[in-house]
């Protein structure tokens, strides 16, 4: 059984190299991870921007620098123009010995109130409350860990796209007809897809994790997690490859299938622990839990529990899809 699988894997590799697909597949997520690594620090430390009247007391100008970025405006019109730009910026304008906070009205609800609170604090004679800070001493921001979970989960999606379009290509070029009359079986076909796409997603996942998390991540768990979640790539690939007759239809199917595949993990990040059960019926939710556990330490089940559920759930879906796919691909 191993030799036919190896032959099928070799065929896929030759085909991918000829079309430069492997280069694009490897480069695109790594580029995205690098882009994220560049942007994340500024997202994590994003603070308010204040447009200040240049005529304001220097104490006020210096004081505001403790609370965010400061942009000075020479005239009231300059200040109004700055406030009216698309980002949420509150202005502070001097009116004799008093100040007014200027906002557009469509900002996040508390920008005006927060700016007034800052102004009051800077100009007040003393403090109104004793405030002590206790740091939990974390060094890696949660946002980076969440981004790493999503990017590595994206590697699973990319492997799925690779499998789906490989099947479509084989149908279009007639390779699948040749396979149908060869001794290759459905199981060997699935196994070859698993090996070829699995290798790509492991490389993509490890490279993306290195870029985003450095050497500190648990790479053994990442490789093990990707290997388990690959079952989802096969589900995804079989849906695209099974439903689409050509690459054009493949894109149409991809658009529809991708939305719940990536949307459910993202939605699960925004929903509190009390309502996570809503996502339990979706195998991709469990696949995402594997990477949440690795990077954030948060998951409904522990790492191995999520791996087992993903494998069982994904395996059941593949078993359900296999007869249809066998019929459409005419494999034994």
């Amino acid at each position, binding site marked *: 059984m191993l030799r036919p699988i190896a032959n099928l894997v070799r065929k896929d590799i030759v085909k991918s190299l000829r079309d430069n697909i492997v280069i694009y597949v490897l480069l695109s997520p790594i580029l995205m991870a690098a882009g994220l690594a560049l942007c994340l620090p500024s997202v994590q430390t994003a603070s308010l921007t204040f447009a200040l009247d240049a005529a304001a007391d220097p104490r006020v100008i210096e004081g505001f620098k403790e*609370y965010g970025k400061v942009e000075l405006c020479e005239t009231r019109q300059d200040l109004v123009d700055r406030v009216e730009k698309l*980002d949420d910026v509150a202005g502070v304008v001097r009116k004799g010995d008093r100040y007014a906070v*200027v906002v557009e009205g469509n900002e996040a609800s508390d920008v005006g109130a927060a700016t007034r*609170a800052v102004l009051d604090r800077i100009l007040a004679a003393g403090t109104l409350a004793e405030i002590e800070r206790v740091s939990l001493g974390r060094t890696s921001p949660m946002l980076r860990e969440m981004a790493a979970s999503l990017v590595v989960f994206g590697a699973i999606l990319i492997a799925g796209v690779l499998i789906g379009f490989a099947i479509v290509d084989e149908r279009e070029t007639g390779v699948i007809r040749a396979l149908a009359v060869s001794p290759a079986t459905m199981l060997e076909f699935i196994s070859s897809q698993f090996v070829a796409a699995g290798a790509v997603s492991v490389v993509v996942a490890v490279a993306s994790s290195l870029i985003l998390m450095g050497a500190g991540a648990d790479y053994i768990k990442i490789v093990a997690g990707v290997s388990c979640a690959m079952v989802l790539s096969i589900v995804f690939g079989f849906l695209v490859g099974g439903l689409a007759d050509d690459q054009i239809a493949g894109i149409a199917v991809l658009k529809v299938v991708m939305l719940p595949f990536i949307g459910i993990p993202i939605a699960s990040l925004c929903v509190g622990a009390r309502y996570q059960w809503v996502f339990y019926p979706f195998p991709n939710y469990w696949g995402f839990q594997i990477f949440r556990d690795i990077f954030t330490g*948060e998951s409904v089940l522990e790492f191995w529990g999520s791996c087992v559920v993903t494998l069982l759930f994904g395996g059941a879906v593949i078993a359900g899809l296999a007869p249809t796919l066998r019929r459409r691909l005419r494999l034994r």
Partner: protein
Amino acid sequence: MLGRYVSLFQQDLKVTLRNGFSYVVLILAAILVAVVDFAVPSEVKLTPTELFVDLTEGRVFESVLRREGVEEARILRSREELTREVEKTRSGIGIVVEGDLENPRFTVIHQGTEAPENLNLLDATLEGLVRVMRGAESPTGSDIEYLRPRAGATPVPFNKGLVPLIVVFEVVMFGFMVVAVMVFEEKQEGSIRAIRVSPARPLEYILSKASVNVLLALVYGALVVTFTVGPGVDYPRLFLLIGAAALLMTLVSLSVAVFFGNVSEFLFVAIVFMAVFSLPMVSYLLPSFAPAFVTWIPSFPVVFGVREILFPTGKEGFLAPMVGMVLAETAVFLAASHWAVTRKLMREGR
């Protein structure tokens, strides 16, 4: 020229409908409408969640927090419970208040990764809360001036606020893949060879494809907006902005796609392009994140423009310069796509 354009347009429209993209639009619109209307809650807090414990005599702060709309789940009973929750959520901030209203003592338990400016801002907000509770006047007598009369209107629910994101990053970008698919199909079926020897010129070829994609985007956008925000939207202005942005996206895609051999190759490059065009999504959800490089991305002004059209705050005169800028970018990519189509697509194989 018009006759050739119309004939190419009819042909492209038929091919697009034959490929099932009309069904894809309907299915995606139905899914997105269902998600916005029924799945996404109307209130979601994206910034760090503050959790509170009021240990003051008579718990004077708790009632004020409730009145300010802080949900019950964010008001905890003990310092230990609060510390545990802050550690567990890993993005939350815990606030313990002790003493009394005259001498309050706050302890802010934070993760350690927050910007110092944001922690200072929290301190100022807490002092502001104390000031309000004491009924004290602002020491500076500062007022808040709203630039537009409609300011302070009912805030847009979180789920409806996602509609501009869907319109720009899904509806407008839909054409990015569709136009590439049309080109690859013509290459694959050999119909591009027929076009090469026909009287059709590259400009007509480009405009016909762009028109089909603009039409798809308008139908897709109208479906999503009507069934989420409602029918009372300023559709002419919305269609103007969606149409201009969809035209731009189509031309960007066409300028790039002609250099690739098949959909599979282009797909992964398209993902990178779409990821870059989607970056302004972060600025939309987190308005304090607006570095210069993000504001240069064409989708940045468009998403805020769509928001203003769907949920007007009274801002006037923004649409003409915005559409003008998008059209100027479109002109650049029209030239680029014309060059690419002429050099690559129309000469390939000669």
